[in-house]
């Protein structure tokens, strides 16, 4: 780098000397670029030359005589007479510049050497040296960055090759393991089924025996018959109760359903219904509330529109049933009931802070579309009161909530595929080949040792088989999910040299006023404000030969398009997102610096450019 700087300054000095000699040329040559000087020399020798576009010829006196003779402006390089002309400023000490002829003598200093303002109306200071210095410093920094970036990029590319190879190796190994494991699981399954058959047989046998025994008893104790009937009825009624439970679990998408459901008048229902907001207003139409309402309404409309494109049928259903599983029956009853009654949910919140917090989390989830769904166990018991709670709560509370949730948000970069990571760690032991051997041996042992035809079945052995089966099939599904995530990952286009590989699984953030913008290449982009997340787009593709990342199909804008983000890429030694902007409604733009864009070829051209200024 030092060598660069020194030679650089040397060039600057020599360029000043060169310029002095250039000034000696005719004064009419003002505005002429050095490469054109030869062309204008024709005037001195032959008296007339052709306009560059061949439209006309002009004489020496017509050169820069402030009258446009050539429609392409060639006779007026130094005046504003021809609208299509260009004026060349030498800008000694800085970069030469070709400016529109409309800038000549317009009272605004455009060239740092002031040569574009020569009619005496204003005086332009020559700022080339200072500006040049700034530019040179900037360029030097840029070159430094570039060099650094090139190095990092090289490393990244090599690394990516290794990692991709590793991923591929892992993938093929996992596929292999999957095959083996599939076989084992199949065997275990068969064995398990055999055992179960045997057990069933045993059970039937037992029942038979018991029945016979009972019948014998029955015969002896005839007067107790009526009582027994009651018992049977009791058992039956119990059975039907559990069926009811099942129905509740299967409740259709709750929020939506409730909106349409026959609601108690005056009671606010699910959060993403618009009507409930109105009820709200009817209660209190004071100015402040209306304002709040306005904002709230925006939020809820946002939510509402998220469901617009395709409301993802079933996802809520799943949530609900998951909820139901994790809740006691009483809690579930309250939760569902609170959608009608509202009040009780509040009580429940007081009683069970944990649940309340979960509800809060859930709102994040709501607005962030699928963003967190993989990570969060969805929870869909949002109520009007919860919403109220959000509106009225101190923001601090939210901050706490959010902070607790996303502790690593403060850093400008983080990894997003926590599921992936977990899988990885899990797989760490599965990827140990001894494990596979072990499990194979175990299974073999079982298959040999356990005799399904043995009666009575050895309960400890059947337990072991069952456990072995559960273990093996659990591991199989983990392997399969790892395979699918690896396949998905390797399916991405990481660039011609896989130079973008290192961006996979990472997110980059920038805080802009009250928003935090998150850009996760190959995944998604979002805008977070406090507790609400707006989805700016899913990963779409690279564009403009890897100079642009496109994220599309984000949350729908009200009355507008689906949000999208265009990330322009620039060479930088660090990966950083900057300059986030929304030039058109819901069409976002950002800049991302990354070493991936630091191409050696470009560095050379920069270097060259740097030298150019010194001429």
């Amino acid at each position: 780098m030092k060598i660069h700087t020194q030679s650089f300054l040397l060039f600057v000095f020599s360029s000043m000397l060169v310029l002095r000699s250039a000034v000696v040329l005719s004064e009419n040559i003002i505005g002429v670029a050095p490469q054109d000087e030869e062309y204008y020399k024709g005037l001195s020798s032959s008296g007339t030359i052709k306009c560059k576009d061949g439209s006309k010829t002009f004489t020496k006196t017509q050169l820069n005589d402030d009258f446009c003779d050539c429609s392409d402006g060639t006779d007026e390089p130094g005046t504003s007479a021809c609208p299509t002309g260009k004026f060349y400023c030498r800008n000694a000490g800085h970069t030469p510049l070709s400016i529109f002829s409309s800038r000549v003598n317009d009272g605004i200093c455009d060239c740092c050497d002031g040569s574009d303002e020569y009619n005496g109306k204003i005086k332009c200071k020559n700022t080339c040296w200072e500006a040049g210095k700034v530019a040179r410093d900037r360029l030097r920094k840029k070159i430094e960055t570039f060099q650094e970036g090139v190095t990092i990029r090289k490393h990244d590319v090599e690394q990516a090759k290794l990692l991709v190879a590793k991923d591929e190796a892992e993938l093929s190994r996992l596929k292999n393991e999957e095959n083996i494991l599939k076989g084992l699981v199949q065997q275990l399954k068969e064995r398990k089924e055999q055992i179960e058959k045997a057990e069933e047989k045993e059970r039937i046998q037992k029942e038979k025996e018991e029945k016979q025994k009972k019948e014998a008893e029955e015969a002896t104790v005839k007067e107790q018959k009526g009582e027994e009937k009651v018992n049977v009825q009791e058992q039956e009624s119990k059975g039907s109760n559990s069926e009811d439970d099942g129905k509740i679990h299967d409740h259709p998408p709750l929020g939506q359903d409730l909106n349409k459901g026959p609601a108690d008048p005056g009671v606010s229902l699910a959060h993403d219904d618009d009507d409930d907001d109105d009820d709200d207003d009817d209660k209190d139409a004071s100015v402040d509330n209306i304002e709040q309402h306005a904002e709230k309404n925006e939020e809820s409309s946002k939510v509402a529109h998220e469901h617009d494109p395709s409301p993802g049928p079933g996802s809520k259903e799943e949530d609900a049933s998951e909820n139901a599983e994790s809740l006691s029956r009483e809690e579930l009853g309250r939760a569902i009931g609170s959608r009608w009654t509202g009040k009780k949910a509040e009580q429940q919140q007081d009683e069970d802070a944990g649940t309340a917090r979960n509800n809060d989390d859930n709102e994040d989830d709501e607005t962030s579309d699928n963003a967190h769904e993989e990570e969060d166990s969805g929870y869909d018991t949002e109520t009007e009161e919860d919403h109220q709670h959000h509106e009225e709560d101190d923001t601090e509370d939210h901050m706490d909530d959010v902070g607790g949730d996303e502790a690593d948000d403060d850093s400008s970069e983080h990894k997003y595929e926590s599921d992936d990571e977990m899988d990885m760690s899990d797989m760490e032991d599965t990827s140990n080949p001894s494990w596979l051997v072990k499990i194979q041996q175990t299974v073999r042992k079982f298959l040999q040792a356990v005799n399904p035809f043995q009666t009575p079945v050895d309960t400890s052995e059947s337990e072991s088989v069952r456990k072995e089966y559960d273990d093996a099939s659990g591991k199989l599904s983990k392997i399969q999910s790892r395979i699918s995530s690896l396949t998905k990952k390797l399916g991405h286009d990481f660039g011609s040299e896989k130079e973008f590989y290192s961006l996979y699984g990472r997110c980059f953030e920038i805080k802009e006023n009250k928003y935090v913008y998150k850009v996760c290449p190959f995944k998604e982009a979002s805008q977070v404000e406090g507790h609400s997340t707006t989805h700016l787009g899913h990963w779409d593709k690279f564009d403009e030969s890897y100079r642009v990342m496109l994220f599309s199909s984000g949350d729908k804008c009200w009355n507008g398009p689906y949000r999208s983000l265009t990330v322009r890429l620039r060479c930088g030694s660090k990966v950083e997102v900057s300059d986030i902007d929304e030039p058109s409604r819901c069409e976002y733009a950002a800049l991302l610096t990354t070493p991936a864009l630091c191409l050696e070829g470009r560095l050379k051209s920069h270097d060259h450019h740097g030298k150019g200024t010194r001429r």
Partner: protein
Amino acid sequence: MSSECLLPKPTHISILKNPYYDHHTTDRSTMKSVVVLHCFLGFILLLSHLNSVYSWKKEEFRNCNQTPFCKRARSRKPQHCNLIATDVIIADGDLTAKLITPKENPHEEDSSSNPLILSLSVYENGILRMKIDEDPSQNPPKKRFEVPDVIVPEFESKKLWLQRYTKQVIHGDSADSFVVYLFDGYEAVLRSDPLEVFVREQTSGKRVLSFNSHGLFDFEQLRVKKEGDDWEERFRSHTDSRPYGPQSISFDMSFYGADFVYGIPEHATSLTLKPTKGPGIEESEPYRLFNLDVFEYIHESPFGLYGSIPFMLSHGRTRGTSGFFWLNAAEMQIDVLGSGWDAESSIMLPSDQNRIDTLWMSEAGIVDTFFFIGPKPKDVVKQYASVTGTSAMPQLFATGYHQCRWNYRDEEDVKNVDSKFDEHDIPYDVLWLDIEHTDGKRYFTWDKVLFPNPEEMQKDLASRGRRMVTIVDPHIKRDENYHIHKEASKNGYYVKDASGKDYDGWCWPGSSSYIDMVNPEIRSWWADKFAYTQYLGSTPSLYIWNDMNEPSVFNGPEVTMPRDALHYGNIEHRELHNAYGYYFHMATSDGLLKREGGNDRPFVLSRAFFPGTQRYGTVWTGDNTATWEQLRVSVPMILTLGLTGITFSGADVGGFFGNPDTELLVRWYQVAAYLPFFRGHAHHDTKRREPWLFGEHNTELMRDAIRVRYTLLPYFYTLFREANVSGVPVTRPLWMEFPDDEATFNNDEAFMVGNGLLVQGVYTEHAKDATVYLPKDHTWYDLRSGTAYKGGKMQKIEASDAIPVFQRSGTIIPRKDRFRRSTVQMENDPYTLVIAVNSLGEAEGELYIDDGKSYEFKKGAYIHRRFIFSDGKLTSVNLATSASEGTNFLSDCTIERIILLGHSSKPKSAQIEPSNHAAEVELGPLQIQSGARSSVLTIRKPNVRVSDDWSIKLL
């Protein structure tokens, strides 16, 4: 229009599906959609409806049937009026009479009515003024409202004091008619029984304009409320208490010798006003004049829009042009009656003349009307201008291109947009900031995050000669910490509701009150708010935009203020509604005048307007839509505004709502470049549409359109001066220039810029060429190629890259062909004169120059030349009256090029006097552009100064 039941519906749910309304808290990136509209019970939000296709909600506005006075007036039959004129005398130079109902035949409705007072006054240049009001000596319950501050003070000095009348019996009437002098060859006649007031040609006796020829005059006099009177009116959820009861006025007005009638903006309709009632006309609404913020107005509708000018013109081949103006600020409805509408009545009218009858209906006020005799189109607009004033002389910068968007978000955005214009070498003069620049829609404030350094930003723009415009609306946020609100509420400066409390409506900032601008004291207070010390962050390069001044009230009846709201002087809002925005505009304009000590011409754009608005600023056609139809209708809308006094007007280029196709956008630029006010604007839900965003070719086309405008600015500025002096608009319907060419009478797709340029818009997709009618008896030179076309027929013109524009033979047009960043840098650039000779080898044109910003021109500091070309010699003649001492305007500008179109000989050089030097004559391009062919006769570098007398003789 379907008629809707007048009864209030059981539930009143008003929903405005208006994104413009909905985004009042719009923030830079979260979508903020707020639907605000309420019925008295509260707010109803039905977001589920919001995604559907939005469009004009006609049910939210009253139609004639839902408007009792309109319904009543419209249902009356001819010969309804039984008033007669008595006690006719000359008093104070006026002819006055009492209008009474004859005793022997008492009218059943008005048996107890008092006499009305009618007065006729005559003014210079053929203007008859007729006033009818209640007799003050009869002590009516309330003085009816007369709109002050509209008629220019000079007008009174033009009054001709009538000395005598002559009596005459007309059509075998039983009573005398009274005839007074009006103008050379014209008389005004008061026919007493049946009552009629008309203007006639003296010699032929032919009627020109006639009031009440069909006896539809009706004047509801104010009376004391009797028990059982129900004066309330209900519309949707709103109730109008109407404490003064019915007070409407209606009458018929006939235009003789008329083939078409024009005027009465603002409506999105054709230039010629189609009949709204009569045989063969299906259910139709009258033209409504009621200033309204109409969301997504449609391109063919008689419905009222943002402004109102009750001035109608008629034109016919034989008679020429007449005009009629009713100064009244209440809601007005006007029917153009189709021929044969009166077939069933037994009225006998002169049948040898074409006639167009019209019915005028107003909810309140008085009859204060003006009859303009013409007879030439320009005479009528001049006559109207002598009553309401000519248009203000704009600053030069305002005639350039304006770039607006809702919203340029922050200082960086502003910087970027500004620098992109330079990057693409596209000139522009003004960058605009919409409501989001404020701190929470508190006008006169800045959003501290988005615009932390407004002064610096303006100074930076100004360093390249550019101005900025910010928006200031009349609704004031009811926020105790907002200084404007604090002062206004403390001083009682707000409009009051019917109960006398500050009226509280809803607009962008939420709960808002509205400054009562009718009061001069309040206007003066408001004007002071524009002082640099008051409007913090404002600089001398900042100008103002008044929006929402109809006024727009989101939760008011028909999105405006209740009619029973009260203004200063106990004036009901119903009486002055249409003038509210005018007073606001006036006060703002005065503010800009004040802040620079009265020597910087204000620039204030207003959406609402009224007669007189032309004296205060510019208007635009409001929230149009990005469709071809709206591009098409913008032309007649702007031409109509020009005919009715407001020449400095334009439409949002590209269309406010929606995303224009690239081709539409390009075509819009191409047409709008020739219209007086030239501003690109867009709704914030739309994609960015600055001219460089659509590929190099389209950038070039749009740049070209904008540049042509800039090259023609000397011509435009000269025309603005003409409008300022005479009232003749900058852009004119063809018939104004060619009143004898019938083919032009209803042409509203082409228009004239001055008398020299004919512009034909392209209003359809994929057009490769355009068919244009070129008026007869002239030769027309294509502005780009110089090709000559004969007039009097349709011509098919290639139009793929530009719209057809022609210079008329016999004219000289001044241009500045050098391209600059903005008008400021063009100041010293030399001129090009383009001479298009007529069949006699002659041509004429004018050039007006002043400093482009101050009022020094009023003291004579300007250059005004007439260029006359005749017998192969061009002469520059001074038109300026000698300036007072020390106020000469000096310019070193020269003429660098003179282009001759249609000149028969081939001169080699030209002799210039008095300097006695020669200039070369050669073939050069008509427009300098790369690859231009040299084909037109060009005098090279005559280098005469524009300020001097000189002549150039072709040799």
